């Protein structure tokens, strides 16, 4: 897996195979996992210096990379907690007598334009723009207040002074700058910031809205697939994303395994797509569950904007934006589950929504699986790896051993059989640093950070 060129390196004489080693793990070790601590989204910012996670309890935790140490120039910095705040609270909709979950469904960073950092976080109904800013100075020498804050009697003030700024311990503050509410009847599944850095979209099961970051009391509805008669509903929107360079283009995926690319210049309401991506079904693999497993759980553009990747239950597909009738690449994530679909349907695992991500060079793609396994596919060499996020292999710089699932016949040593997989340990959310070989993998309530091995 070709990654980033090593600093000062000539590529070495060793193989190009990338090896991953453990860097850090965040989160409690207890066996008893509190529901609120389950991580529900992971996202690096544009520079990769900040890593945000959202959880089911509505909290956002931001990790910041420490500056690289001068004594060991090749060592990567550690990520430590930078800010923690409660983004969303549980709400009760009195009109419909429904509880609105505080779970953070998605976090998306805005590109940094000044000293402060901005991110969008959303639950099922409301999107919030948060400003995270540092304060490392405070003013001293107020005229009307004492040092301890007590008001001074104005009569006693004989002379005016200019307050001075003195350094203080770094404080990171998060404040909600905009609240975008009341625009979604159904549950929000995606948000995506436009390349114009002024607008963003939010998508729920049936509609997609376009917002301006400065305006909270209005949004444009740009896609509406709700039928006049709900009984005719056969398809829902599952994910949506703006093109990374073309600010008029976005895609949305559906529960029927199709992707529609829309151009906002063609009409105000983008119910008619510009491109329609669908792979014809393979009749030999048809089953009762074919439609359910074709439902796309995530769609991501490549960084270069020429491809997009979709994740359905059993596979990841790479599509060329210029070819609508089939994907250019298909990778099987856990094909051994195809013969277990009925059981997975029975216990609802078949509805799990796995995400996927690209590396910075668009040469490798990564997605999660069960048993805390996650998979990487090198698009150039066509080699794939299965790794595990576990406490057992969490020693500093320990190299991760590739895992293998035994699909039948004799189980070799170190292989795990399909029947022994733990389907409660699912890796749904992963993120790849924008420029380096550094990944974040969310395993229930723990966040694992892995980096490539340094010779």
């Amino acid at each position, binding site marked *: 897996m070709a990654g980033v060129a090593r600093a000062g390196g000539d590529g070495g004489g060793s193989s190009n195979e990338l090896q991953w080693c453990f860097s850090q793990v965040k989160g409690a070790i207890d066996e008893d996992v509190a529901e609120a601590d389950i991580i529900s989204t992971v996202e690096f910012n544009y520079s990769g210096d900040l890593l945000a996670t959202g959880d089911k309890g509505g909290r956002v935790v931001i990790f910041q990379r420490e500056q690289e140490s001068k004594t060991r120039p090749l060592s990567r910095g550690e990520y430590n907690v930078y800010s923690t705040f409660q983004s969303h609270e549980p709400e009760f909709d009195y009109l*419909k007598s429904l*509880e609105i979950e505080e779970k953070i469904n998605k976090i998306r960073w805005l590109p940094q334009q000044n000293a402060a950092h901005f991110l969008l976080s959303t639950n099922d109904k409301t999107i919030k723009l948060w400003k995270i800013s540092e304060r490392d100075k405070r003013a001293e020498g107020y005229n009307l207040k004492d040092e301890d804050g007590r008001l001074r009697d104005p009569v006693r003030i004989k002379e005016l002074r200019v307050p001075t700024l003195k350094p203080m311990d770094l404080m990171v503050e998060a404040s909600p700058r905009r609240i975008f509410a009341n625009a979604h009847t159904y549950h929000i599944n995606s948000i995506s910031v436009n390349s114009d850095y002024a607008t963003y979209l939010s998508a729920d099961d049936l509609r997609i809205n376009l917002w301006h970051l400065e305006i909270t009391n209005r949004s444009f509805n740009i896609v509406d697939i709700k039928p006049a008669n*709900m009984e005719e509903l056969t398809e829902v929107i599952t994910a949506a994303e703006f093109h990374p360079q073309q600010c008029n283009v976005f895609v949305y995926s559906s529960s029927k395994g199709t992707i529609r690319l829309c151009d906002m210049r063609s009409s105000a309401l983008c119910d008619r797509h510009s491109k329609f991506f669908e792979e014809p079904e393979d009749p030999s693999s048809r089953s009762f*569950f074919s439609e359910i497993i074709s439902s796309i759980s995530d769609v991501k553009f490549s960084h270069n904007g020429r491809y997009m990747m979709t994740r359905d239950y059993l596979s990841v597909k790479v599509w060329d934006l210029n070819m609508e009738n089939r994907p250019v690449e298909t990778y099987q994530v856990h094909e051994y589950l195809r013969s277990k679909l009925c059981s997975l*349907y029975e216990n609802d695992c078949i509805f799990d929504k796995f995400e996927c991500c690209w590396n910075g060079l668009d040469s490798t793609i990564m997605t999660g699986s069960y048993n805390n396994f996650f998979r990487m596919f090198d698009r150039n060499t066509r080699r794939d790896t299965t790794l595990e996020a576990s406490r057992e292999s969490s020693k500093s710089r320990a190299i991760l051993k590739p895992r293998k699932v035994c699909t039948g016949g004799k189980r070799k040593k170190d292989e795990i059989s399909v029947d022994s997989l733990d*389907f409660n340990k699912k890796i749904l959310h992963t993120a790849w640093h924008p420029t380096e070989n550094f990944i974040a993998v969310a395993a229930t309530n723990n966040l694992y950070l892995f980096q490539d091995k340094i010779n």
Partner: protein
Amino acid sequence: MLGRGLKRKLSDYEENMAGLSSAFDSSRSLPYPLKRQLVLNMCLTKLQTYKMLVEPNLHRSVLIANTVRQIQEEMRQESNQQPVNICPGITPSSHSYPGMESSGISLQLPSGISQQESSCCDLRSVEDPIENSLLIVSDDDMSSAISSILKDLDFVEDISPPTCLVPSGDDQPKFPENTGLKLEDDRQDLKGAECVFGSFEISNSTSYLKDLAIDDIFEDIDTSMYDSDFCCPPLMPPRSPSLATEEPLKTFPSCNSSSASNIQICRTDLSELDHIMEILVGS
């Protein structure tokens, strides 16, 4: 089958289901119709469970409903094709009667009828009548299960008024200014929608239960207050609470016009009310 990590559920039914789904996955000898029936049962069970929830998951409901429809369609096609297998003389055109096929009735063309008579469309069943009635019942169940859950999702979920955007060809994007901002209008729209649905929900069993729950909760309150809020004329005259338990069938349309919050409260008592309903209807 699903290993050490998966918690076993307590109920016997669910344990049996787990056993059955393992059998589905592992057994090659399970006959196809049985597999299909198993999947169908699982789907209907899930849809029933979702109906009990205050807010069913729309994505899952749609996927399951599509699976049920697919199986339903397959079963219909099979029952249409069977007479062809039995008597090859019947022409293909004889088993498509668009006007006659209503949801819930599986058409069975009789065997042994000569080619000339086949176009008369005798709807007698050739299959074992018990099996056929089972097919018919399940078809009804499926259709009503799908319809009712999707309809419920509609008037429960959607309070936003229809968008005022002009479709394609419009250069200026229009502002849906009233999207979700005017709660008063939404409430009126919701009640309007409910009035429409109220008259069509004949097969929706939850409407019986809404009726009952309101009686239980508001037994000593004069319900004429609720009746007068409606934006559309009630389909039935407002009834007094004391009659409600005796005439559930007549009173549910007016009941449907009551506020959404009552309906939500009713949902949580569905299992008890289901039981009460059974006793009252004597089924």
